[in-house]
């Protein structure tokens, strides 16, 4: 390489060996440098780091309909969940190399270790940690596939292994055994940057490579980089058995084969800078072959899939490790003056969002960015400087418009496209496999399917149909069951329309298996859901589809929304659905702890917010609120069983809330009455006390309309209020006394309310009440103690005879063991 440095203008001298272009994956500067170097060297073959199975797919890159960002996807044929991605953006050096080769009619080949082996590595590790790599599976619970840790060399394949029924964690990334512990291998550039006095490797790379024009010597940057990497890798064992060594051995072999075929100097290799010293190293063919012996295999299949800038960014899954793809795309795309053009772009975006940004702003921002760069000792303003300038000049110091700039420009909304000729996505295969396994054939004819969820196969079918529904593949529609209403039964109406195949293909962007895709879709839906109720519905559907992996995300969004939602009515609407989900969860034996936590949290928020929300309501709003109180009461009753630890006893707290409601004058009568009634029913309020409260409300000091509303709340509706009046004559007496005491002109106001209250009673109750009133209240045995004036009954209970029934009741209610009283429980046991 020294020869090239001395004579930059002359084409590479013969005998220099293959042209090794070490790059930073997804670095626009690298991409430009690669283009220049290829143009200068004019090799007869271009070798690229990547899975060789993708060689037949290379010509597709020249297709008109192919638009980066795209990714090469490798997946195991019999296990679509085991897959790896090689994302490529427009500014990726690999992509540039492919395009250059295609444009110049030069063959391009991938030379990395075949995916058939790399995928098999993943399998070994998930099955049982192989002795060589004990740390990856066990000690690294957050593998790179989740996008949480930035990979060292961004273009390394991102693996995932979410096969059906397999846990998503514990699958290995593409790291060698020593990788997690060795900072140099984890991020060689960070080590170089640190040596150069930079705290951020991205900025160091930008300064040293990206911002350096390639004017003059096209090969010089690569030589410098190779030297640095060589220094970093000096201590490497010559014949390691880790994954890097194996991959590099394979690459060396491929390189040699190409050299034999095309001539020593006619070969150009584009690979991660890290690998260059290893490829340069002289090793015998036999030694390399030996390393490759006995590698396990899986049958692998490859295709192109569309990718997005957002997925390239670090924040989302399968991240390629760059957090500013939009900025890189800009750097790669513009002919000159990148900062000026970038800030003009930013100004355009802000103007489109109705922010006043003048040309003067742009000028000032450019000046500030340049001065900042000078002060920080950088050759050119980078993303940090321009962002600071945009914040100070165009955004008035605020981060809100700045986040818009980040989202739309720095990351960007670019969506890749793949031509139709690309092979089928693995999701289709997975679906076909599941259909076979569950014996559920796609048929065009509509038919109804009854599922008994206690059976393994039926439960599987139900899960599949629910998951597909989440993915927008409407193969089955849930129908109302005719025979049974039990929660362990489901009825579906099935019909397979031809366009559903298209839907499946579309859903392929979400993942490679039905499970993974549905999980990803549910998570995305949760974030985008407009209202609280939508999220609770989604949570319910997640449970039905048994998307346990998506639940934490959905629950977090739910908890966040609930925390910020100031409207108690929304919370009260959400709670019953959640509690219902809990019951479904019981049937399907899913872990619903997270759900219980959120539901309990929601209940607490309602408890706090309810009393203030009940103040100053008009009649309609009061009726609505009464409905909410009822719904919450029902939900708390069910929830109280599930939640005992951590949240105290929810029921006790709910009762105290009701007590507050019942005693507060600003709360509308109908809600107050309802609260008293619930407390009375639950035995929290003595009858005497209830009577006192009623007397208080019905006393002449209260407006008659309010009193009537109270009565409506207390005994109204189909909640058995009539029976209460029949059996507690004192209450009836109070109502009667009040009613007869209502002044004549007020009576007409009160009448409609009372009529609404009493007309809802069953005819029998109404008649009995009428008789009681005619007889005159207080004439019978009005004393408390359960005494009833009904004819034909003794004055007191015969406790001996009553006791005889108790064991049977106890047995029926299952009070002897801890199980709740629910038919669901039977199913839970059976399933």
């Amino acid at each position: 390489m020294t020869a090239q440095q001395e004579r930059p203008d002359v084409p590479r001298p013969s005998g220099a060996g293959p042209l090794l272009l070490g790059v930073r994956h997804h670095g626009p500067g690298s991409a430009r440098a690669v283009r220049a170097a290829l143009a200068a060297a004019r090799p007869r073959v271009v070798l690229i780091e990547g899975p060789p199975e993708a060689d037949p797919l290379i010509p597709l890159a020249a297709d008109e309909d192919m638009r980066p960002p795209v990714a090469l996807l490798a997946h195991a044929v019999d296990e679509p969940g085991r897959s790896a991605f090689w994302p490529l953006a427009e500014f990726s050096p690999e992509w540039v190399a492919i395009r250059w080769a295609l444009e110049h009619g030069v063959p391009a080949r991938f030379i990395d270790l075949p995916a058939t082996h790399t995928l098999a590595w993943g399998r070994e590790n998930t099955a049982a940690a192989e002795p060589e790599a004990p740390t990856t599976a066990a000690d690294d619970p957050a593998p790179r596939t989740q996008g949480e840790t930035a990979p060292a060399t961004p273009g390394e394949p991102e693996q995932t292994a979410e096969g059906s029924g397999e846990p998503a964690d514990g699958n290995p990334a593409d790291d060698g055994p020593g990788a997690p512990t060795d900072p140099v291998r984890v991020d060689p550039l960070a080590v170089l940057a640190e040596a150069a006095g930079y705290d951020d490797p991205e900025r160091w790379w930008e300064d040293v490579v990206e911002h350096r024009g390639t004017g003059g010597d096209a090969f010089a940057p690569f030589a410098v980089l190779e030297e640095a990497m060589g220094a970093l890798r000096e201590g490497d064992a010559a014949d390691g058995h880790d994954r890097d060594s194996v991959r590099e051995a394979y690459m060396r072999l491929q390189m040699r084969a190409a050299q034999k075929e095309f001539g020593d100097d006619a070969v150009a290799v584009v690979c991660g800078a890290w690998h260059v010293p290893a490829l340069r190293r002289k090793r015998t063919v036999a030694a390399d072959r030996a390393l490759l012996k006995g590698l396990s295999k899986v049958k692998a299949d490859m295709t192109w899939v569309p990718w997005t800038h957002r997925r390239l960014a670090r924040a989302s899954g399968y991240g390629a490790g760059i957090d500013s793809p939009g900025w890189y795309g800009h750097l790669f795309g513009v002919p000159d003056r990148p900062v000026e053009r970038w800030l003009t772009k930013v100004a355009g975006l802000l103007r489109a969002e109705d922010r006043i940004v003048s040309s003067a702003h742009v000028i000032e921002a450019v000046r500030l960015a340049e001065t900042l760069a000078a002060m920080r000792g950088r050759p050119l303003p980078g993303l940090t400087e321009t962002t600071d300038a945009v914040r100070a000049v165009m955004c008035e110091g605020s981060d809100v418009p700045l986040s818009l700039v980040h989202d739309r420009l720095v990351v960007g909304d670019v969506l890749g496209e793949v031509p139709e000729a690309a092979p089928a996505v693995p999701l289709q295969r997975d679906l076909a496999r599941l259909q076979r396994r569950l014996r559920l054939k796609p048929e065009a004819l509509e038919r109804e399917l009854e599922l008994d969820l206690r059976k393994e196969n039926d439960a599987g079918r139900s899960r599949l149909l629910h998951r597909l529904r989440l993915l927008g593949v409407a193969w089955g529609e849930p129908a109302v069951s005719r025979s049974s209403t039990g929660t362990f039964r489901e009825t579906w109406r099935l019909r397979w329309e031809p366009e559903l195949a298209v839907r499946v293909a579309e859903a392929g962007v979400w993942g490679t298996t039905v499970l993974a895709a549905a999980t990803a879709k549910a998570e995305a839906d949760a974030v985008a859901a407009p209202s609280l109720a939508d999220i609770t519905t989604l949570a319910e559907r997640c449970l039905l589809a048994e998307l346990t992996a998506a639940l934490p995300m959905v629950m977090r969004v739910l908890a966040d929304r609930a925390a910020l939602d100031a409207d108690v009515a929304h919370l009260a609407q959400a709670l019953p659905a959640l509690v219902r989900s809990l019951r479904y969860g019981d049937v399907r034996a899913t872990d619903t702890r997270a759900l219980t936590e959120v539901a309990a949290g929601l209940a607490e928020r309602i408890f706090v917010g309810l009393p203030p929300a009940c103040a100053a309501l008009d009649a309609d709003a009061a009726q609505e609120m009464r409905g909410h109180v009822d719904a919450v009461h029902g939900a708390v009753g069910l929830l109280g069983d599930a939640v005992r630890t951590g949240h105290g006893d929810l029921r006790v707290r709910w009762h105290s809330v009701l007590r507050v409601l019942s005693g507060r004058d600003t709360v509308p009568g109908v809600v107050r009455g309802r609260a008293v009634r619930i407390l009375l029913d639950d035995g929290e309020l003595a009858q005497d006390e209830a009577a006192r409260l009623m007397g208080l409300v019905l006393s002449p000091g209260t407006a008659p309309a309010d009193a009537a509303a109270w009565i409506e709340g207390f005994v109204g509706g189909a909640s058995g209020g009539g029976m209460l009046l029949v059996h507690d004559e004192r209450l009836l007496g109070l109502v009667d006394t009040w009613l007869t005491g209502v002044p004549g002109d007020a009576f007409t106001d009160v009448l409609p309310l009372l009529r609404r209250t009493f007309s809802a009673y069953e005819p029998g109750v109404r008649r009995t009440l009428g008789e009681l009133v005619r007889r005159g209240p207080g004439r019978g045995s009005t004393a408390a103690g359960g005494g009833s004036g009904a004819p034909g009954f003794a004055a007191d209970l015969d406790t001996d005879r009553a006791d005889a029934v108790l064991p049977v009741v106890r047995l029926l209610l299952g009070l002897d063991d801890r199980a709740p009283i629910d038919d669901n429980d039977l199913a839970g046991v059976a399933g």
Partner: protein
Amino acid sequence: MPASVETTTVDPSHDQSAQSAPANAHTDTHVPGAPAGGEELRPHAEHAFAHELAALAAQDDRPRPVRWKLSPWAVATYLLGGTLPDGTVITPKYVGPRRIVEVAVTTLATDRALLLLGVPGTAKTWVSEHLAAAVSGDSTLLVQGTAGTPEEAIRYGWNYAQLLAHGPSRDALVPSPVMRAMAEGMTARVEELTRIPADVQDTLITILSEKTLPIPELGQEVQAVRGFNLIATANDRDRGVNDLSSALRRRFNTVVLPLPESADAEVEIVSRRVDQIGRSLDLPTAPDGIDEIRRVVTVFRELRDGVTTDGRTKLKSPSGTLSTAEAISVVTNGLALAAHFGDGVLRPSDVAAGILGAVVRDPAADRVIWQEYLEAVVRERDGWTDFYRACREVSA
């Protein structure tokens, strides 16, 4: 580090220098390194840190803009602290993101004015004073913005005795701090820019864009020489202030000073200030105070950020600012309570009432937010039972 908490109250000595000092400004306040004597309640930044500035100037070999005492890099070092090659330790004046200081200093090096925004208690005035001291060696060219700030405070006034005796002339003219800064190429400061009436604010437009101040009475003008710039501070939380016209806003680069980033930094600031205030009020120091301070800071931060420290639970934010300065006053109050009415130990019950007062500004909305916070977060936290009870007691 001097606590980065400013006082937004009008400092009488500042006011004087702004309004009436010009007459004798050239005599004493301007002499660099004037004998401090240690008598001043609060010496100016350029006096208090004169040795640091001198050391920086001696070792600073980077290019300096015209009339700057230090290079931009050295100014940033002066604010952020560091150790010079000769071993001189520069104390940090501002604890916060480096980026903010860099953008601020760079702005002053261009000809754009600098606007420091932030909620009360984020060290805006403090930063502006030190910037002026480091750049121009003089932080006294100050206009304090109030609702009653007249145009004369920004342009110039007249010495009426002179005016009547000798007619209009430059001798009868009383220059404002801004005018002097223009003439001498110095850094002028305007405090609380948004409290100044809008018409008076707009006086600045000509000064900042044309860099000239016409004196029509004399048919003259004062042109700014190189080195002149202006730092303004404004509070972005108060409603009903005089918002800047967009014409004026355009002349400024805006830097928002954030609240302390980490809980530890904030606890540090609070305890230091509480200690200082406590000593001047002769309050006994509380032995276990630090735990309670940490708790107050945690509550303030969580409510302010709308999320719990562990990042698990979202919260609604109340309408109050809940700044560091308020946390300081809550703790000081609690200490006073503990000293005079309690057993001298800072206990949850001593701070509970203060926190309630700081959080619940809007009796309807904030109370619900506070109770939600109590029930959802405080009740379940280990070791917070006493605090929960105390809060329940005062909020009931």
